[in-house]
């Protein structure tokens, strides 16, 4: 029983991260009908952006090479004392870390869209997919070569308090923040004017264009929001596991994609639901079946869903267009 509750807690935490990443897949798929293969690298990049921001404001280091010993960095010293000194400072620190990660990862997403996908807007569907794999390979190896090929420790500044049953403050923080972000995105897409434009573009890009919606802007925005949320999930992952590495995006990326498909790709709430369901199933599988095969569980679910219910749990059945 104890294990069951612990695994459920782990599953929900994992699910929050999967849901955040899955949104990126679903948003892009909804509008461009393409799998953004490089999205898992956005998750990875987010973790690195978060780490660097954190290090910058606490140690005054940049990628471990420039330290606050350098004279032009000395202004950071009082700042780092403030950030690490008090609870208020920590709250500010995490707000800054998440905000910077959000913006930088979002911009990286927009950049990849502009460079790699936009020139292929009218190409056959295979082309952007391959281009996306190219982006993914490029980003991974860029981090490997220019930052570090070994895992980097993610400083555990978050005050961790245990509540029993495997519940702790960090897990609560991750789950609550994920849910809040999901709720904000859901409101944004369903209530605001821009959200309406996004939905219109995903239904019919041409018709939306005729109604005066700038589809290039909407696509750029989609490629900002998706990666930005994925980046936040990356920081969560760094905080949760305590270390990050260049190849960290692969499995969460595929699993989040599974979550998106599970919920019905293109469907925002479906992706959220799929993320949590997958996280819980995977944790239970790891706890009760085998840890070695926990990655297989997600893949088997993916194959079963795609084969028997390609529309997903919340998706409408897809009508093939000739």
């Amino acid at each position, binding site marked *: 029983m104890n294990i069951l509750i612990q695994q459920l807690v782990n599953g929900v935490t994992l699910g929050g991260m999967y849901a955040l990443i899955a949104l990126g897949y679903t948003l892009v798929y909804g509008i461009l009908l393409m*799998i953004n293969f490089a999205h898992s690298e956005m998750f990875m990049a987010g973790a690195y952006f978060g780490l660097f921001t954190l290090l910058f404001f606490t140690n005054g280091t940049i990628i471990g090479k420039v330290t606050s010993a350098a004279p032009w960095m000395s202004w950071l010293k009082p700042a780092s004392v403030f950030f690490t000194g008090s609870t208020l400072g920590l709250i500010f620190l995490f707000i800054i870390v998440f905000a910077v990660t959000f913006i930088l990862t979002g911009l990286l997403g927009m950049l990849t869209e502009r460079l*790699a996908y936009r020139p292929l807007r009218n190409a056959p569907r295979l082309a952007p997919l*391959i281009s996306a*794999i*190219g982006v993914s390979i490029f980003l*991974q190896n860029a981090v490997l*070569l220019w930052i570090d090929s070994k895992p980097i420790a993610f400083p555990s500044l978050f005050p961790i308090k245990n509540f029993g049953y495997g519940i702790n403050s960090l897990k609560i923080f991750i789950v609550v923040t994920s849910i809040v972000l999901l709720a904000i995105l859901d409101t944004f897409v369903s209530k605001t004017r821009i959200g309406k434009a996004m939905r219109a573009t995903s239904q019919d890009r041409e018709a939306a264009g005729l109604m005066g919606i700038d589809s290039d802007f909407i696509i750029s925005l989609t490629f900002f929001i998706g990666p930005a949320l994925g980046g936040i999930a990356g920081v969560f992952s760094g905080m949760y596991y305590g270390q990050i590495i260049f190849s960290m995006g692969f499995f969460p990326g595929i699993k989040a994609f599974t979550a998106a498909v599970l919920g019905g790709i293109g469907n925002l709430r479906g992706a959220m639901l799929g993320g949590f369901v997958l996280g819980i199933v995977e944790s239970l599988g790891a706890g009760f079946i085998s840890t070695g095969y926990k*990655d297989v569980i997600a893949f088997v679910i*993916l194959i079963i869903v795609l084969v028997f219910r390609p529309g997903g749990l919340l998706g409408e059945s897809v009508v093939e267009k000739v």
Partner: protein
Amino acid sequence: MDDFAKPQKPMFQKSEKKSRVKSLLTLVLIALVFIAPFVFQGFGQIFMVRVLAVVGLYIILALGLNIVVGYAGLLDFGHIAFYAVGAYVAMIVGTPVAKLLGSTFGGLSYFIALPVGGLVAAFVGLLLGLPVLRLRGDYLAIVTLAFGEIVRICLTNNIFGITNGASGLPAAGHALPDPFGLAWLKLHTYFTIGDNFVFTFTSNVYWYIIIVVLILVAIVVVRRQDDSRLGRSWAALREDDVAASAMGVDLTKAKLYAFALGAFWGGIAGVTFSYFQAFVSPESFTFLESSLVLAIVIIGGMGSIPGVLVGALVIQGIPEFIRGIASSGLLDSVGIHLTAEKISEVSSYRMLILGALMVVMMAVRPEGILPSKRLARELHPVKAEPVVEGPSEELDDDMLEKQ
């Protein structure tokens, strides 16, 4: 109609002349390929023989994937799984068979493991093909990727207790025997020309020749397949599966054949890899390897055999060559010394450049370096334009007639 018929005749005559030159060139190339290992080995550049053999293995792999991706248009990200299946079958079947045959004929076990590995891989290909029959495009890509990862994870977790987990095969005391005839060849094929050229028949040369023969067989088989009824049904499936099905093409059969035949060559390459390396571990079969093989097919030119050859040379050959030169110590005589770290950096830079190349290639030349003519026409936007404009012109004519 006349426009279409006119250029037909001269084009045909020209191509006949061209084809004679072409076949002569091909013969010269094949001869060079066979002479190459003797020259390299003779001058002591053993690493070059190894590099070429590895490139050869990737050519076989890519020829198989080319059937699935290039001919049938089914995107497959899990091709390396078949390579893994072949490699592990070779280890698992080859060792007992070698023991059974005894010390004299034990070396023949490769030739038994080869068809077995190929057929098992083909069967696994069928197993993958069956559930994904209804999937298309990117969904298919993801499922094949998942399949490849499932195979790798199962190997890592020592599935059925026969794969020895992450440490790989052979387990202690189960080494594969030397290939048949190598000992004899080593003794009898030894010659020197002058002082610098000393040739001995090493196992590298042996496997190189086996691999080249396999490539030639694969090319002949794959080409004949492509020209067959099956090949044409693949083309139809690739261009438009709905139209193909309406014309009576059996899509299920075409897809399953594509997966099974593609997987077969993956298995063949795997068996050979296993014997060539005398060691396999799950590390050799990651998604990265799958994407490398896919990159060979795509950057070389989908559906084109010369494309596969060029692609493998560019993507696998150049970096392996650089790595080989660096680790052979040849550069030391020129005064450049590369550490092991620098050498492994080379392969990371290869991946970095490859990633960028894939992006640029898709934007500039999506059909690859040496594409098949039909796919080039389909993929290249410039050449596709008249096709798009066609209907609108007809529409104008119709309207004029009505007026």
